């Protein structure tokens, strides 16, 4: 089972997680920029984080045979903090980078005017940089939030076919599917979706344009939930090909809209300037 986790926050996870993910079949992932749990107080805090998503984190992933791309954005929650909003001006130069395959996570948290502005501005950035957008749907007042999100996307210059609506569930999937957006589901131990309900939705709404992610972060989450969904699909009678569509080909198709997704061998890793032998020593120098 080959797995592409289209939404996971690896900088919050351990090296053991990378190893377990590789063993479970994860070969590629996208890490969207998000809230760190602790509020940021300045723009520089975002820049160091973006640099990590473009530098150290892909390196760490490659050490475990996993290809790492990222999505960059001002997240919805911090779009409300005037100390953070000026990062929007810095995004232009970051969105040019090779391993950036989407603008994200953008969207609504509390549905404030500041969030309206940040969402519209960043949908336009996606247009300018020919990138798709990963749009988070709010956890509170979700149904209204999805409706409003779809309205804003429709008012933007970004076609719905280049938008992934994430964190969907039973109450929001129909509206999202009608919108023409790609459909993202986050599978969690306690909240959001679980694998049994996910299989039920796949039966009801089909596998087309559906992406399943672990959205694992610093909270109670599980980076192997993608694998668990694949197993639950097989147990329910879905074919290997259908599992591959949901867990690999759909995320590949969505992020390929960027024109930058690269799942091939990366010459920059170990085979340049002689073979860099991993000596088994921890890189603690």
């Amino acid at each position, binding site marked *: 089972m080959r797995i592409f986790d289209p939404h996971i926050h690896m900088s919050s996870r351990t090296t053991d997680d990378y190893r377990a993910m590789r063993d479970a079949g994860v070969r590629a992932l996208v890490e969207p920029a998000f809230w760190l749990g602790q509020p940021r107080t300045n723009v520089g805090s975002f820049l160091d984080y973006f*640099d990590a998503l473009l530098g150290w984190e892909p390196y760490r992933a490659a050490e475990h045979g996993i290809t790492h791309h990222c999505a960059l954005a001002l997240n919805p929650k911090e779009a409300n903090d005037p100390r953070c909003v000026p990062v929007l001006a810095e995004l232009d130069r970051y969105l040019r980078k090779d391993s950036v395959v989407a603008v994200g996570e953008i969207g609504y948290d509390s549905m404030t005017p500041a969030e309206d502005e940040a969402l519209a501005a960043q949908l336009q950035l996606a247009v300018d940089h020919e990138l798709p957008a990963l749009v988070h749907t709010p956890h509170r007042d979700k149904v209204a939030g999805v409706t409003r999100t779809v309205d804003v996307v429709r008012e933007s210059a970004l076609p719905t076919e280049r938008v992934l609506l994430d964190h969907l569930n039973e109450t929001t999937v129909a509206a999202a599917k009608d919108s023409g957006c790609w459909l993202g589901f986050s599978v969690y131990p306690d909240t959001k979706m679980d694998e049994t309900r996910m299989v039920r939705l796949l039966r009801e709404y089909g596998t087309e344009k559906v992406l399943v992610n672990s959205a694992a972060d610093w909270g109670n989450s599980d980076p192997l939930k993608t694998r668990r969904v694949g197993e639950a699909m097989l147990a329910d009678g879905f074919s290997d090909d259908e599992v591959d569509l949901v867990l690999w080909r759909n995320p590949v198709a969505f992020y390929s809209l960027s024109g930058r997704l690269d799942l091939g061998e990366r010459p*920059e890793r170990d085979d*340049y300037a*002689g073979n*860099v032998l991993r000596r088994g020593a921890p*890189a603690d120098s």
Partner: protein
Amino acid sequence: MDSPTLPQALAALRAELVEAVPHEAAEWLEATLGWAADADWESSFAVATRRVGRGALPVSGMPAADAARVLLLHAADADLATVTRLYQQGDAAERRAVLQALSYLHLGPEAVPLVEDALRTNDTRLIVAAVGDYAAAHLDQHQWRHAVLKCVFTGVPLTAVSGLATRTDAELLRMLGDYAAEREAAGRPVPEDVGEVLAAQPPHQPQHPQEP
């Protein structure tokens, strides 16, 4: 600005790159190198990978995009402020290209902080690029020895280190000898290339570090 003459190594690199990439990419490269001295070449620097692809060159083994970026930096005769900005705002691949280009640019030791920054990371892509000719020419002896040790600790082969034969001194041999002893005490193997350096010039006791 006079267009800088192409050092032999870069001329060879340019020829290899033009030969290796598709026709369209080669045309883009020739055009962008042609106006690099006076146009917005930095946007070409940013998109180089998407233009020339991710493949490695057949002879030098250098990623094609690294080669394109090094050639661009040289063609633009990038100054200290420019290389510093491109490094600081670059992703890992862009930073690596800046590091590799340093020895071809008209820079004195002022760009050493970029090399120091790269040597503080644990990213071997950057470390390999940092221990080239520029480091051999401009790091002081203490920094240079620690750069060599950094390679040893992160698994970068010592063949990547420029000037190893000429800059290795008694103090570096003492450090490598101590490292080998520490490995042996822990029951771990001593990396082959460390053993080779020590075998060629065994450290003699006692050692008195000498600063250049």
